[in-house]
């Protein structure tokens, strides 16, 4: 075992970690820029999540595959190269399949490269474990990322446009909260999500204490 490598775990556990306890957005605050920038509609959020998942899995796979051959001194450069390749691929594929979304995501699609989450996972996890675990971890992190993005973008789209995936929810008299789809609304939505999460945790803690 490589020193400092994560302890062995089942593939399922590797996946769950990213969705729950180590959720990149809600717990680790990684990859904040796309989280804020593209979550003004649910479609964008999901697309960004999917693309990031693709890159996470792809780069995890390659980093893990080549981990024995990548020299320590150039590892960062190599990882970035791998990640950037997958981002470019994702960018092109999205542009060729969903041009509208690709346009909406604008430069934030290529910016996945700089998403701290990717390099972080590559170095802290994929570089140290076997391929199947790296892929499972990438998938889990990606799903966790997508999930949080969906949650946020659903919140923002519902209030900010009165619609979900473009379908109006409340009829014509609904007054949208433009705030929610503007920059401060992005921070605000995540803030509210975090406060709500913390509140739930707190309530549960109190209940446990009351029982004990």
């Amino acid at each position, binding site marked *: 075992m490589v*020193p*400092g490598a994560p302890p062995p775990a089942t593939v399922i556990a590797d996946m769950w970690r990213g969705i729950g306890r180590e959720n990149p957005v809600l717990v680790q605050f990684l990859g904040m820029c796309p989280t804020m920038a593209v979550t003004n509609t649910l479609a964008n959020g999901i697309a960004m999540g999917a693309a990031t998942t693709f890159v996470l899995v792809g780069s995890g796979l390659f980093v893990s595959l080549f981990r024995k051959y990548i020299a320590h*001194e*150039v590892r960062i*450069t190599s990882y970035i*190269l791998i990640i950037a390749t997958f981002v470019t691929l994702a960018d092109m594929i999205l542009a060729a399949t969903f041009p509208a979304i690709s346009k909406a995501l604008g430069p934030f699609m290529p910016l996945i490269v700089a998403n701290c989450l990717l390099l972080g996972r590559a170095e802290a996890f994929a570089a140290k474990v076997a391929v199947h675990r790296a892929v499972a971890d990438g998938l889990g992190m990606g799903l966790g990322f997508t999930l949080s993005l969906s949650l946020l973008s659903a919140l923002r789209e519902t209030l900010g446009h009165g619609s979900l995936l473009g379908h109006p929810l409340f009829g014509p008299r609904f007054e949208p909260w433009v705030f929610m789809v503007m920059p401060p609304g992005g921070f605000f939505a995540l803030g509210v999500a975090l406060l709500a999460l913390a509140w739930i945790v707190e309530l549960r803690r109190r209940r446990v204490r009351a029982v004990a």
Partner: protein
Amino acid sequence: MTFHAIAILGGMGLIFAVFLALANRKLWVWEDPRIDIVASMLPNANCGACGHPGCRAFAEGTVAGTISPAECTVASDDVHKSIAGFLGVDAGTAVRKLARLMCAGGNDVAINLAEYRGLPTCAAAAAVAGGGKGCAWGCLGLADCERACDFGAIEMSDTGLPMVDPAACTACGDCVEACPKGLFTLLAADHRLLVQCKNLIAGDDALEQCRVACTACGKCVLDGAPGLISVASGIAVVNYELNALAEERAAARCPTGAIVWLTGAQFAHLPALAGSERQ
């Protein structure tokens, strides 16, 4: 086109590899990577209980061989062993210590002369007329120690005494520092004979202030092994150098219960302060 692409990126790769290789030769400042690894294995509480400025300094010391892993009082034995295993050194041993309170004067047994109003901290109360408590040495019960404890090992009893959870106490010494009355001491876990009082007034005058005061009557001195306990300036003192001779018997005849034989936590019989939601 394919050739173009491969050439550009491959070429760039080559160029940067040369750069980095050169840089690597000329510029690299080497630092033992094991320090990071050991640091990542430590609890990272940065509590200072080991006597070093933070966990990373401890890690540097262990890698350099000047500190043995067991000196981290916070980490579990497993962690000691795995660090020792990783570095290929002996884990070493450390005496397990616990924080003990040298006062049992809860608000049910010790009197108050005046009502203290003001900042609800022991330090502040101590600076104001000693806090209004009859006994000037005794515990003020305002929980500075509970707040100081980073490990949540202290909880106030409903009579206003701090109860230390031996399982959670890491002997970091924060409570010793926090208590303005200096009532905490770090004692080895096997030092079980304890005078739970610091009141220097001798005789019945002390009892007017607190029912569990040490009155310096000297019974424990007679009942303990010779030299183990002595009475000086109004208080009984245990000489822990002779701890091996300590026996429960020494505490048996104390008329006030000021000296006790500990079998676990202090004040274990007291209920915790209800709704203690201090932050």
